[in-house]
Protein backbone atom coordinates (compact mmCIF):
# COMPACT_ATOMS: atom_id res chain seq x y z
CA UNK A 1 0.00 0.00 0.00
CA UNK A 2 1.31 3.40 -0.91
CA UNK A 3 1.68 5.99 1.83
CA UNK A 4 -0.90 8.22 0.12
CA UNK A 5 -3.41 5.36 0.10
CA UNK A 6 -2.88 4.67 3.82
CA UNK A 7 -3.49 8.35 4.56
CA UNK A 8 -6.63 8.30 2.44
CA UNK A 9 -8.31 5.15 3.77
CA UNK A 10 -7.66 6.01 7.43
CA UNK A 11 -8.17 9.75 7.02
CA UNK A 12 -4.75 10.33 8.59
CA UNK A 13 -3.19 13.53 9.76
CA UNK A 14 0.48 13.57 8.68
CA UNK A 15 2.65 14.84 11.57
CA UNK A 16 6.13 14.97 10.05
CA UNK A 17 7.73 16.88 7.20
CA UNK A 18 8.54 16.29 4.42
CA UNK A 19 6.01 13.66 3.46
CA UNK A 20 8.06 11.17 1.49
CA UNK A 21 5.44 10.21 -1.06
CA UNK A 22 5.53 7.15 -3.25
CA UNK A 23 6.74 4.91 -0.43
CA UNK A 24 5.01 1.58 -0.23
CA UNK A 25 4.34 -0.75 2.70
CA UNK A 26 3.09 -4.33 2.48
CA UNK A 27 3.09 -5.35 6.15
CA UNK A 28 1.91 -3.94 9.45
CA UNK A 29 2.35 -4.80 13.12
CA UNK A 30 0.27 -3.38 15.97
CA UNK A 31 1.62 -3.25 19.52
CA UNK A 32 2.07 -1.07 22.57
CA UNK A 33 4.96 -3.23 23.80
CA UNK A 34 8.33 -2.10 22.54
CA UNK A 35 10.17 -5.38 23.19
CA UNK A 36 7.57 -7.20 21.09
CA UNK A 37 8.17 -4.70 18.31
CA UNK A 38 11.91 -5.41 18.51
CA UNK A 39 11.36 -9.18 18.68
CA UNK A 40 8.78 -9.68 15.95
CA UNK A 41 9.38 -7.12 13.20
CA UNK A 42 12.07 -8.45 10.88
CA UNK A 43 11.44 -6.24 7.90
CA UNK A 44 12.02 -2.48 8.03
CA UNK A 45 9.29 -1.90 5.41
CA UNK A 46 6.71 -2.72 8.11
CA UNK A 47 4.25 -0.11 9.42
CA UNK A 48 3.99 0.13 13.20
CA UNK A 49 0.50 0.79 14.59
CA UNK A 50 0.55 1.95 18.18
CA UNK A 51 -1.41 3.91 20.77
CA UNK A 52 1.78 5.00 22.55
CA UNK A 53 3.26 8.37 21.69
CA UNK A 54 6.32 8.65 23.90
CA UNK A 55 9.97 9.11 22.96
CA UNK A 56 10.70 5.40 23.35
CA UNK A 57 8.40 4.52 20.45
CA UNK A 58 10.58 6.64 18.17
CA UNK A 59 13.79 5.20 19.66
CA UNK A 60 12.47 1.67 19.14
CA UNK A 61 11.62 2.45 15.50
CA UNK A 62 15.06 4.01 15.04
CA UNK A 63 16.77 0.84 16.28
CA UNK A 64 15.21 -1.33 13.60
CA UNK A 65 14.99 1.31 10.84
CA UNK A 66 11.20 1.51 10.71
CA UNK A 67 10.04 4.26 8.37
CA UNK A 68 6.38 4.70 9.26
CA UNK A 69 4.53 4.88 12.57
CA UNK A 70 0.75 5.19 12.64
CA UNK A 71 -0.72 6.47 15.90
CA UNK A 72 -4.25 5.21 16.53
CA UNK A 73 -7.17 6.63 18.58
CA UNK A 74 -6.24 10.17 17.48
CA UNK A 75 -3.05 10.21 19.56
CA UNK A 76 -0.55 12.95 18.75
CA UNK A 77 2.93 13.11 20.28
CA UNK A 78 4.63 16.31 21.49
CA UNK A 79 6.59 18.60 19.12
CA UNK A 80 9.84 17.35 20.59
CA UNK A 81 8.98 13.75 19.78
CA UNK A 82 7.87 14.69 16.26
CA UNK A 83 11.25 16.42 15.86
CA UNK A 84 13.09 13.29 16.98
CA UNK A 85 11.19 11.28 14.36
CA UNK A 86 11.99 13.83 11.65
CA UNK A 87 15.69 13.76 12.48
CA UNK A 88 15.57 9.98 12.03
CA UNK A 89 13.53 10.30 8.83
CA UNK A 90 10.60 8.42 10.33
CA UNK A 91 7.17 9.41 9.01
CA UNK A 92 4.43 9.84 11.62
CA UNK A 93 0.70 9.67 10.89
CA UNK A 94 -2.27 9.93 13.25
CA UNK A 95 -5.70 8.39 12.66
CA UNK A 96 -8.86 8.68 14.75
CA UNK A 97 -9.56 4.97 14.15
CA UNK A 98 -8.91 2.52 17.00
CA UNK A 99 -6.17 -0.11 16.73
CA UNK A 100 -8.77 -2.72 15.73
CA UNK A 101 -10.49 -0.52 13.15
CA UNK A 102 -7.24 0.74 11.66
CA UNK A 103 -5.90 -2.80 11.31
CA UNK A 104 -9.16 -3.98 9.75
CA UNK A 105 -9.27 -1.16 7.21
CA UNK A 106 -5.62 -1.69 6.24
CA UNK A 107 -6.20 -5.45 5.87
CA UNK A 108 -9.23 -4.79 3.67
CA UNK A 109 -6.98 -2.72 1.44
CA UNK A 110 -4.41 -5.47 1.00
CA UNK A 111 -2.02 -4.87 3.90
CA UNK A 112 -0.92 -8.06 5.65
CA UNK A 113 0.62 -9.07 8.99
CA UNK A 114 4.27 -9.90 9.54
CA UNK A 115 5.75 -13.30 8.70
CA UNK A 116 5.37 -15.53 11.74
CA UNK A 117 8.83 -17.00 11.81
Amino acid sequence: MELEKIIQVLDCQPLTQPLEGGKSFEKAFGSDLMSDVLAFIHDDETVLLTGLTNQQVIRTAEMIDLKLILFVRGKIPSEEIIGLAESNRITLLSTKASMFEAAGILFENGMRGIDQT
Partner: protein
Amino acid sequence: MKFEYTITTQNFTTAGEASSNTKKTLKLLGIDSKIIRRAAIMAYEAEMNIAIHSRGGKIQLEIEAHRITIVAEDQGPGIADIDLAMKEGYSTASHEIREMGFGAGMGLPNMKRCADSFDISSTPGGKTRVVMTLNL
Protein backbone atom coordinates in the same frame (compact mmCIF):
# COMPACT_ATOMS: atom_id res chain seq x y z
CA MET B 1 37.85 1.29 19.53
CA LYS B 2 36.01 1.80 22.82
CA PHE B 3 33.06 3.94 23.86
CA GLU B 4 31.35 4.32 27.21
CA TYR B 5 27.90 5.71 27.96
CA THR B 6 26.41 6.54 31.34
CA ILE B 7 22.75 5.56 31.85
CA THR B 8 20.73 7.45 34.44
CA THR B 9 17.96 5.62 36.24
CA GLN B 10 14.32 6.54 35.50
CA ASN B 11 15.25 9.20 32.94
CA PHE B 12 13.04 8.34 29.99
CA THR B 13 13.99 11.42 28.00
CA THR B 14 17.65 10.47 27.66
CA ALA B 15 17.09 6.68 27.70
CA GLY B 16 17.88 5.35 24.26
CA GLU B 17 20.60 7.90 23.46
CA ALA B 18 23.43 5.47 24.15
CA SER B 19 21.89 2.94 21.78
CA SER B 20 21.26 5.63 19.19
CA ASN B 21 24.93 6.65 19.39
CA THR B 22 26.02 3.01 19.25
CA LYS B 23 24.01 2.54 16.10
CA LYS B 24 25.39 5.68 14.46
CA THR B 25 28.97 4.70 15.30
CA LEU B 26 28.57 1.24 13.74
CA LYS B 27 26.99 2.79 10.65
CA LEU B 28 29.90 5.22 10.25
CA LEU B 29 32.28 2.27 10.44
CA GLY B 30 30.47 0.63 7.54
CA ILE B 31 29.42 -2.46 9.52
CA ASP B 32 26.89 -4.76 7.79
CA SER B 33 23.32 -3.52 8.33
CA LYS B 34 22.06 -6.90 9.64
CA ILE B 35 24.76 -6.84 12.34
CA ILE B 36 23.96 -3.20 13.17
CA ARG B 37 20.30 -4.10 13.64
CA ARG B 38 21.18 -6.89 16.08
CA ALA B 39 23.66 -4.67 17.96
CA ALA B 40 21.06 -1.88 18.19
CA ILE B 41 18.43 -4.22 19.69
CA MET B 42 20.96 -5.62 22.19
CA ALA B 43 22.14 -2.14 23.24
CA TYR B 44 18.63 -0.72 23.46
CA GLU B 45 17.19 -3.56 25.56
CA ALA B 46 20.23 -3.40 27.87
CA GLU B 47 19.98 0.38 28.15
CA MET B 48 16.26 0.30 28.96
CA ASN B 49 16.80 -2.40 31.58
CA ILE B 50 19.41 -0.24 33.30
CA ALA B 51 17.11 2.81 33.14
CA ILE B 52 14.04 0.91 34.32
CA HIS B 53 15.24 -1.78 36.72
CA SER B 54 18.53 -0.50 38.17
CA ARG B 55 19.93 2.44 40.11
CA GLY B 56 21.86 3.47 37.01
CA GLY B 57 24.90 2.17 35.21
CA LYS B 58 26.91 2.23 32.04
CA ILE B 59 27.17 0.63 28.66
CA GLN B 60 30.50 -0.04 27.01
CA LEU B 61 30.88 -0.63 23.33
CA GLU B 62 34.07 -2.14 21.99
CA ILE B 63 34.71 -2.65 18.30
CA GLU B 64 37.54 -4.92 17.18
CA ALA B 65 38.39 -6.27 13.74
CA HIS B 66 36.60 -9.56 14.36
CA ARG B 67 33.88 -8.67 16.86
CA ILE B 68 31.69 -6.15 18.65
CA THR B 69 31.35 -6.40 22.42
CA ILE B 70 28.61 -4.68 24.43
CA VAL B 71 28.91 -4.68 28.21
CA ALA B 72 26.03 -3.38 30.35
CA GLU B 73 26.79 -2.95 34.01
CA ASP B 74 24.74 -1.29 36.72
CA GLN B 75 24.82 -0.41 40.41
CA GLY B 76 22.20 -2.89 41.57
CA PRO B 77 19.83 -3.97 43.08
CA GLY B 78 20.65 -7.15 41.15
CA ILE B 79 18.49 -10.06 40.03
CA ALA B 80 17.45 -12.72 42.54
CA ASP B 81 16.63 -15.50 40.05
CA ILE B 82 18.41 -15.17 36.70
CA ASP B 83 16.75 -18.25 35.14
CA LEU B 84 13.35 -16.73 35.88
CA ALA B 85 14.40 -13.29 34.57
CA MET B 86 15.52 -14.92 31.30
CA LYS B 87 12.07 -16.47 30.70
CA GLU B 88 10.00 -14.90 27.92
CA GLY B 89 7.14 -13.01 29.51
CA TYR B 90 8.63 -12.69 32.99
CA SER B 91 8.70 -9.10 34.18
CA THR B 92 8.61 -7.20 37.43
CA ALA B 93 7.88 -3.89 35.67
CA SER B 94 5.40 -1.62 37.44
CA HIS B 95 2.10 -0.44 36.02
CA GLU B 96 3.67 2.96 35.17
CA ILE B 97 6.50 1.28 33.24
CA ARG B 98 4.04 -0.93 31.34
CA GLU B 99 2.09 2.15 30.32
CA MET B 100 5.27 3.43 28.68
CA GLY B 101 5.54 0.33 26.52
CA PHE B 102 7.87 -1.84 28.57
CA GLY B 103 7.42 -4.91 30.71
CA ALA B 104 6.70 -7.54 28.05
CA GLY B 105 9.43 -9.63 29.65
CA MET B 106 11.10 -9.94 26.27
CA GLY B 107 14.20 -7.76 26.72
CA LEU B 108 16.68 -10.31 28.02
CA PRO B 109 15.45 -13.06 25.62
CA ASN B 110 15.73 -10.52 22.76
CA MET B 111 19.33 -9.74 23.71
CA LYS B 112 20.25 -13.42 23.91
CA ARG B 113 18.62 -14.16 20.56
CA CYS B 114 20.47 -11.33 18.80
CA ALA B 115 23.90 -11.98 20.31
CA ASP B 116 26.49 -14.56 19.21
CA SER B 117 27.50 -14.91 22.84
CA PHE B 118 25.52 -13.80 25.87
CA ASP B 119 26.52 -13.88 29.50
CA ILE B 120 24.62 -12.45 32.46
CA SER B 121 25.82 -12.36 36.04
CA SER B 122 24.10 -10.81 39.02
CA THR B 123 23.85 -11.12 42.77
CA PRO B 124 20.80 -10.07 44.78
CA GLY B 125 21.69 -6.70 46.30
CA GLY B 126 24.72 -6.41 44.02
CA LYS B 127 25.24 -5.31 40.45
CA THR B 128 24.05 -6.89 37.22
CA ARG B 129 26.50 -7.33 34.36
CA VAL B 130 25.57 -8.44 30.86
CA VAL B 131 28.32 -9.20 28.34
CA MET B 132 27.30 -9.73 24.73
CA THR B 133 29.32 -10.19 21.56
CA LEU B 134 28.67 -10.20 17.84
CA ASN B 135 31.11 -11.78 15.41
CA LEU B 136 32.15 -9.68 12.45
